[in-house]
């Protein structure tokens, strides 16, 4: 089974966000970058599918700066076979441009499955995976939390409001992973050492700006300083009064 996993290098969610002097981007000084957590589920799923099939290849693809090589190495340390970095200094805000660059790389790869995380935790954009599927004309199921594959057919489950959709699809297909799909492994020392020797190809990429322009990046509006209503159960009547009369939400 040949599987591609598209991953993204993102700032750790613990990062203190400082806005760069251009007023439109993140000041990356001192920021720790990680493999997007949802992409870990995708990498793990690819490894399990390959193991279960008793053979195949897991190829990790990322669009990003040179430093994204480290992110790819993390996935290789988990067990992926090789990596491809589509090197671009800037990732456009328009996800379709990212999707086009990835689709061009994946198009002739002969993949049975192309996996993504359901979203990246930096921009919350939820879109590159299904866009790649459309560009390649492949069936796609997003935000899956359960997957079964047999005889060229798949059944996936995805959470919807108040329930779970059970979705059937043929392979090859594009899937995006939600939490709950699996429990990603930690790279073992042996894997980390092996990853250093695995092939990692770098290709220049020049995604266009597309149809979106970042106007500004600003701190969120500070929430008005709240108040401690009181201590213990004795404070409950006052809380209810405030919720009714001041906040008017009860």
């Amino acid at each position: 089974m040949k599987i591609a996993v598209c991953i993204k290098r993102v700032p750790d969610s613990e990062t203190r966000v400082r806005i760069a002097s251009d007023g439109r981007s993140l000041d990356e000084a001192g920021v720790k970058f990680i493999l997007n957590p949802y992409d870990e589920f995708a990498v793990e799923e690819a490894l399990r599918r390959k193991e279960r099939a008793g053979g195949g290849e897991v190829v990790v693809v990322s669009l990003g700066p040179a430093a994204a090589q480290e992110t790819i190495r993390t996935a290789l340390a988990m067990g992926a076979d090789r990596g491809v970095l589509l090197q671009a200094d800037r990732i456009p805000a328009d996800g379709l441009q990212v999707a086009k660059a990835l689709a061009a790389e994946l198009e002739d790869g002969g993949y049975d499955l192309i996996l993504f995380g359901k979203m990246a935790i930096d921009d919350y954009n939820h879109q590159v995976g299904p866009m790649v599927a459309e560009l390649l004309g492949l069936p796609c199921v997003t935000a899956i939390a359960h997957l079964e594959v047999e005889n060229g057919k798949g059944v996936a489950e995805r959470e919807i409001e108040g329930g779970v959709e059970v979705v059937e699809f043929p392979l090859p297909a594009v899937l995006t992973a939600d939490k709950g799909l699996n429990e990603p492994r930690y790279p073992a020392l042996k894997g980390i050492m092996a990853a250093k020797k695995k092939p990692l190809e770098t290709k220049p990429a020049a995604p266009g700006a597309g149809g979106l322009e970042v106007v500004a990046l600003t701190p969120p509006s500070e929430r008005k300083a709240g108040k401690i209503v009181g201590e213990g159960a004795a404070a409950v009547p006052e809380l209810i009064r405030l919720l009714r009369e001041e906040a008017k939400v009860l």
Partner: protein
Amino acid sequence: MSNVLAVLEQREGALRKVSLEVVTGARRLADALGGTVEGLVLAADAVRGADHLGSVGADTVITLTNAAFGRYAPEGYSQAIADRVKAAGYGAVVFAASATGRDLAPRVAARLGVALAQDITDLAVEGGAVTVTRPVYAGKALQKLKFTGKPALVSLRPNVFTPVQRPKAGAAERAAVSVAAGRVVVKQIKAAPAGTLDVAEAPIVVSGGRGLKEPANFRLLEQLAEVLGGRAAVGASRAVVDAGWRPHADQVGQTGKTVSPTLYFAVGISGAIQHLAGMRTSKVIVAINRDKDAPIFKVADYGIVGDLFEVVPKLTEEIRKLHG
């Protein structure tokens, strides 16, 4: 003049509430662009509630029917919408950032070859261009984006665009549409127990964390949700979901759901940044925690420092009295 298409959602033939919010967002854009709002719902048959959308801002609501459209049909839906957008031309297309909308909008955007901004919390028209705002970096920054092409595709974070009533009727139309057979088919919907509200869409969320001490104690939060009269859902922090106390569907936070209810109760939740990422756009936040230094109190509008096992039952009792 530029019209706006509002992509609405139905389940089992009834319009979903989030559709009212989509019409509301679309109305704001249409007013600024000097156009009309056209609602579009895809279904197997007539949709209950579709003819009432005039009152929140739809000029027309069109139901496109197809035997395959009872449940979400990703390929058929995206084809029907993309075809309509190509034929009619719109200044903007508005979706809900729901499970369906988040899946559907990127497919339509790719078919049209245009940009999409998902999960937005604000929108406007400036100098003729659609601009949107969305939280990024775990809610620690807001990104403002401008669309440089047309149509602008956006999906709206649920519970943010509050419907405004206006005394105007809209027209309703219905037409059959044919699409290619889909390869991706929703075979079944395993529904949550009847009456269960999803945390992402509930107007009130009562969330619990490790402070609850054990899974059975979530009963206290369920009781509080019950007395809030069917408007409340019970949420959970990552810690208790990872511990297996609560299902992932209930998780609020970075690796769970992003919620914007009118009222959010954080009970026994310390307020890690990943949790705040999922609930900081709530309108009113109430925190109940023993630790007066817990970070949750920094974002809470109202806090009670104390033992939740005393505070929550008292709260439930007082609210029950209130509703008689």
